[in-house]
């Protein structure tokens, strides 16, 4: 058991550093359904199998085609039986069902993963047993015709199962995420502001700052005092002279910085720190203080995204069915409105800074202890809340609450509209489409073209331009589809003929490099949904391999 654990830790080391052991656990407990083992489908699955998804089920009613074998990353592992001759291998595989072939080969990539296959078209499954899809953490539909993904979308929306639609169409990649409500505690923002509370120091911080006497320190201590203390001290001075108002604009912040520069004088010890020209230099920690004035003096307040979460209906009305995200959110909200005095629980971390070990650790502990205290208060609120809806206090763990408090400023809730809403003439996002199309080469035109080829497929039971002889005449047929689409939605936009020609040219091809780009992108979005870490896109993503550009629209 320990051997397996260590070997998994070693194998997954590079990704554990991104989503942690708990993220990995979520991944290993997930069961993903992928429909259609095309190049795109197998690429997505490969990028889920490698990091160790628990179980996957591949649904595909097709047989392997010559095209698949040339294009499918699965073909990379096809000829795994050296005894059988090369030619015979091809034939045998081409006779094989795609789902089975792909499943066997994907499992080779990671022995920790379990794979199943269902040799059935999704339409058949929807006809006979739509509940089949209810068991999955996520369903990924690849290269599906419109009628199928609309049907599936409706079933999954009702069942509350997230649905990710992916298609590679020529040099265009498309993804659509459909999930009613997806909560994220650990969004891991790239550039997060620190939570230092310098504008309104909590009691323990105030006392700690008071313990420093900058004017009567040894030189060594003075130059190894954390910049947070320095700024806090000078802010006290500033407050006394400015009616307790923070420096607000550039002018005031510059004046504050000057205050620190001038104050960097030790009264009873001669200046030792001078540069080669003999002029006095700021001590490094004071330089740090000056540099951080810009960000350290921002007023502490609840970010709007978190405020929205507090005001959401799900947060207000807690029931015994409420997910723990909303229960804890309500608890934090109670804290903010009471003990927190309008502020979130203290995060508890400080950045590294020039200081001697002792001063730094003591200061760090002041923040850590306050964070723990605040989290404990939140816990009390959560406990009371759980009791009021008849749930045991163990329903949410200490760890969960601590993690939530630490990330209180970074919480995100993503709601991706249903396909029904996107497609309905009454609720489709006309504004977004029209304003994007002001620029006729916006990625939005690619979306309109995909909708149009779907229309073409509906009418002709095939995609445009698949065979060379079809390209010419299909251009006009596709143009009719474009026009009927624009008319149906009363869209007064210009779709250039060039795009209609290009989409006929594509002939519904699925070039491998575009499939691979989408495969990586989609897999990571799937991992976000499963781990509830990092933030998924909302809700339509388009990739253009010709220009190597992309865009995200909320449709």
């Amino acid at each position, binding site marked *: 058991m320990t051997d397996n654990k260590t070997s998994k830790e070693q194998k997954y080391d590079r990704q554990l550093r991104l989503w942690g052991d708990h993220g990995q656990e979520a991944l290993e407990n997930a069961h993903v359904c992928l429909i259609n083992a095309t190049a795109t489908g197998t690429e997505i699955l490969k990028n889920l199998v490698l*990091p160790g998804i628990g179980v996957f089920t591949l649904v595909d009613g097709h047989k392997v085609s010559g095209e698949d074998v040339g294009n499918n*990353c699965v073909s990379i*592992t096809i000829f795994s039986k050296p005894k059988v001759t090369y030619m015979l291998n091809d034939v045998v595989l081409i006779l094989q069902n795609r789902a089975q072939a792909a499943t066997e080969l994907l499992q080779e990539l*990671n022995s920790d993963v379990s794979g199943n296959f269902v040799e059935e078209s999704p339409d058949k499954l929807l006809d006979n047993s739509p509940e089949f899809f209810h068991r999955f953490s996520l369903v990924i539909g690849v290269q599906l015709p419109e009628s199928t993904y609309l049907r599936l979308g409706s079933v999954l929306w009702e069942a509350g199962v997230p649905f990710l639609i992916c298609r590679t169409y020529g040099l265009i990649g498309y993804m659509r995420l459909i999930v009613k409500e997806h909560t994220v505690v650990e969004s891991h923002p790239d550039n997060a502001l620190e939570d230092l509370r310098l504008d309104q120091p909590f009691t323990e911080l105030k006392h700690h700052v008071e313990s420093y006497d900058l004017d009567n320190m040894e030189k060594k201590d003075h130059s190894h005092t954390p910049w947070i203390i320095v700024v806090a001290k000078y802010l006290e001075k500033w407050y006394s002279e400015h009616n307790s108002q923070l420096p607000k604009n550039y002018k005031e912040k510059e004046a504050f910085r000057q205050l620190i520069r001038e104050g960097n004088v030790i009264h009873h010890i001669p200046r030792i720190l001078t540069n080669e020209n003999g002029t006095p230099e700021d001590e490094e920690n004071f330089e740090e203080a000056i540099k951080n004035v810009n960000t350290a003096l921002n007023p502490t307040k609840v970010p709007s995204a978190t405020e929205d979460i507090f005001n959401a209906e799900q947060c207000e009305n807690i029931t015994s069915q409420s997910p723990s995200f909303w229960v804890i959110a309500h608890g934090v909200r109670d804290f903010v409105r009471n003990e927190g005095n309008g502020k979130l629980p203290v995060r508890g971390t400080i950045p590294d800074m020039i200081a001697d*070990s002792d001063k730094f650790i003591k200061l760090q502990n002041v923040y850590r202890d306050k964070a723990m205290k605040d989290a404990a208060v939140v816990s009390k609120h959560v406990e009371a809340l759980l009791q009021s809806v008849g749930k045991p206090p163990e329903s949410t763990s200490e760890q969960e609450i601590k993690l939530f408090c630490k990330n209180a400023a970074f919480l995100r809730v993503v709601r991706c509209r249903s396909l029904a809403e996107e497609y309905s003439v009454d609720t489709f996002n006309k504004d977004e489409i029209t304003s994007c199309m002001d620029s006729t080469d916006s990625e939005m035109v690619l979306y309109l073209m995909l909708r149009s080829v779907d229309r073409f497929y509906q009418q002709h039971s095939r995609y445009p331009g698949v065979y060379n002889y079809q390209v010419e005449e299909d251009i006009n047929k596709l143009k009719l589809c474009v026009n009927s689409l624009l008319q149906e939605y009363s869209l007064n936009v210009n779709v250039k003929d060039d795009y209609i020609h290009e989409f006929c040219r594509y002939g519904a091809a699925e*070039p*491998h490099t575009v499939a691979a*780009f989408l495969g990586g992108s989609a897999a990571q979005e799937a991992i976000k949904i499963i781990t509830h870490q990092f933030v998924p896109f909302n809700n339509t993503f388009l990739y253009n391999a010709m220009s190597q550009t*992309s865009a995200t629209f909320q449709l």
Partner: protein
Amino acid sequence: MAEGEEPEKKRRRIEELNENMVVDGGSGDHTDWQGRWDHVKKFLERVGPFTHPDFEPSTESLQFLLDTCKILVIGAGGLGCELLKDLALSGFRHIHVVDMDTIDVSNLNRQFLFRPKDVGRPKAEVAADFVNGRVPGCNVVPHFKKIQDLDETFYRQFHIVVCGLDSVVARRWMNGMLLSLLIYEDGVLDLSSIIPLIDGGTEGFKGNARVILPGMTACIDCTLELYPPQINFPMCTIASMPRLPEHCVEYVRMLLWPKEKPFGDGVGLDGDDPTHIQWVYQKSLERAAEFSITGVTYRLTQGVVKRIIPAVASTNAVIAAACATEVFKIATSAYVPLNNYLVFNDVDGLYTYTFEAERKENCSACSQVPQDLQFPPSAKLQEILDYLTENASLQMKSPAITTTLDGKNKTLYLQTVASIEERTRPNLNKTLKELGLVDGQELAVADVTTPQTVLFKLNFIS
């Protein structure tokens, strides 16, 4: 085809399929089955409104890909494995791959051409074996070597070079090598001597892909500021004022290990040896306890010692795919290539940004303009050395400086050979005047970041 089909029907069907498996324009002894390259052919045999101005639809482009085009892949790791697959499945058959590493268990979460049984074997060889064994007709030639071990004649044979490296130094060297292959006639660049370089890089959920046409577009060194120098912790912090768990690990690695030599004299710290890491971990815990620092874990220890960069399959798949798309575009002129830099980040949604990186007029690698060095004659040679290593646009690692004095070639300072380092060390403390250097003196500098020496011109200032 139904499972319960009669054996006779099945046999006839197999024959039919066999007959149909004739290549569209055969290539040597490999037959391509029907439909194999359909997805590629649509882009090579059809006209289109967005194709490259030079593009002409023909069946010859596919043949060029299959029979003639030679691609060099540098690196068989996270990006390299993906690149090999992408290229092989896009019709490229003549591929060489260079990688000096062997397979580690921590590679297996993304370097999918490798299996647990391959741990310890050279990446280039296993990758080549895998692709060759499974993609009929594809011929990947492995080179278990450093890129520096191969010469001009080797690199000159390729149409396109695509890099999936994990070091800036190696990128710069590759960049320099392709620049050195450029031919100028009367100051005019011979376009046929250009070997395009597609470069990809990833780190966690971030990545970038760029297209470099040596001699024409921005090169790696033109945008060196995009790779800021690695920040190391100050020595005084490590030695006497640790605050973070990382400081404790660095203390053990840099100060304690050389002092205690726990595994014997002359035995260096091997980040891949778990017993070494375990020792560092224990000692780091002790160090941390001394200063009441929490947070030292085995994982953190290993991360600091090996300078580990987190990595996942998905980012590598995306960036390699973007690079392979560019290789395809350039090899076939099917579309206008990326001009010239793509940035990708999928931490929050999916974000891409495409821009044209500009050439630097006085780039030390590609501008052919001798680099200016402005120093007073009283400056010490050490100052020039510091400038070469610290300047953001140069970022040299261990430059060797030579010049011509009294008609003879003289080494002013060289670090990489111990005996020469010892002999030339006193020069560092001498002034430029004392060394006999004059205004306008040309200094030739060699460094691991470039295969060619860089010429500098000394300008004396007062």
